[in-house]
């Protein structure tokens, strides 16, 4: 099975092909279109992640000991960012998610999105993904 690290390497390799920011952003916009969308039922006010300029919803469900994430956002670039996160973290064991790091974000030229002033909530999204992992890990124990 592909580990989180394998997937991060894949993403880094994919992004290393781009020569400039425009290609990078165009790719992110494309990725946003393939985001596994959150079901209407879970797209509630409660599931909105605070601290984002755009609205972001993330939902997690446990399937055969693996966390499966779905999400949505009203901004396209934000959607692209979540799509990358989900590609890396979805269908993984909660423990693997908890033990992972997110250094790959620096390496794909998205470091500026981690800055607190960006208010796109990348940090909040990662936190939310980890929170789900904590919650389901406790359940599995």
């Amino acid at each position, binding site marked *: 099975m592909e580990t989180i690290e394998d997937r991060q390497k894949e993403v880094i390799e994919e992004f290393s092909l781009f020569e400039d*920011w*425009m290609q990078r*952003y*165009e790719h992110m*916009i494309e990725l946003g279109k393939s985001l596994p969308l959150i079901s209407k039922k879970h797209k509630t006010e409660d599931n909105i992640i605070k601290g984002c*300029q*755009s*609205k972001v919803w993330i939902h997690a469900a446990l399937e055969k000991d693996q966390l499966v994430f779905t999400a949505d956002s*009203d*901004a*396209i*670039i*934000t959607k692209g960012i979540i799509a990358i996160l989900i590609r890396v973290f979805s269908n993984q064991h909660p423990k693997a998610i908890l033990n992972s790091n997110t250094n790959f974000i620096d390496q794909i030229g998205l470091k*500026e999105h981690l800055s607190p002033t960006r*208010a*796109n909530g990348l940090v909040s999204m990662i936190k939310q993904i980890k929170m789900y992992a904590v919650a389901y890990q406790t359940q599995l124990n």
Partner: protein
Amino acid sequence: MFDINKIRSDFPILSRKVNGQPLIYFDNAATSQTPNQVIDVITDYYTRLNSNIHRGVHKLSQEATEAYEGARKKIQQHFNAAHTHEIIFTAGTTESINLIASGYSSMLKKGDELVISALEHHSNIVPWQMLCEKTGAELKVIPMTQKGTLDINILDSILGNKTRLVFVNHVSNALGTVNPIKEIIAKAHNVKAEVLIDGAQACPHIKADLQSLDVDYYVTSAHKLCGPTGVGMLYGKEALLNKLPPYQGGGEMIATVTFEKTTYADLPHKFEAGTPNISGGIAFGAALDYMNDIGFEAISAYEAELLDYATNALKELPGLKIYGEAPEKTAVISFNIEGIHPYDIGSILDQMGIAVRTGHHCAQPIMDYFEIPGTIRASFSFYNTKEEVDRLVEGLRKAMKMLQ
């Protein structure tokens, strides 16, 4: 003479590159940039003058005190206040508003009414809500119109003998609307209410004449008009400030202290507890000098032309809608492009070195009124150019192509 090249050369940050592109700074309503003339004053203060003011008998303290009090004088003259001691140095607009709100908390009673406008920044909403919770006073709102102006006709029915205070911004930060404050002040005074005007967004564009406005309180921040952050002013009429209880206790603000009783210092020191932002205060004065040397008439004329040019250029873009079309507005354009989230546009413009603001601009009630999550706000200053506006338009076209 208004020499744009000379002016631009005064601002070192304008030659900076961002993401490999020359910076285009269109977020002036959030904070303005700082010219060498102001930066030099701050450097000079720490190089030659640094000492604590008002207390020392030594030379440095005397010189620093003179510079600081000189700045207060400049502020008084700039805004045409009647007395220098009516100018209180604060940390900025927000602190000034909180100082007033805190003072009124002991002077209001249940049933009193406070009036604010629908165009306010959160900093001119939240302190009053807190004050209402504390005192049982009620908050009333002057509504806005689709054009982004205040519905001033309704004002007469909102004001009454229960109205104690009226708070309105001189210029809306989200839309740039210049509010008819002279009329509002006169109407409020008719019912014996006092008026606080938030001048944070007006001060870089309009030179307010406080005596002619007959305003009771006027507040602003230095960093909006080429000064440093962390310093601002509260103007209040002498009689009102004398009645207002002190905000913070501490050094500087006392006359005598015993364990039984403390008597407070006279204005302005009564409201200036602790060691102030001395270099900031002096630099605030230098910023006013800088802008007055260029001249507010020249600045207004230049900015009006820039606003016109930008408004027409932006309107050419398909699906672009401008929010706030008041007949009188400062050089601010708040807009959206159909089907695109403002955040996406802002992110892409940033990659091109163009700084705009996206979001609700700390004015959520305005966004709710228009039923939008936020806008893109380009706010211009006298150091911006038409060429920069052209690059914004070109940047927007590129962003639209990527995002649609």
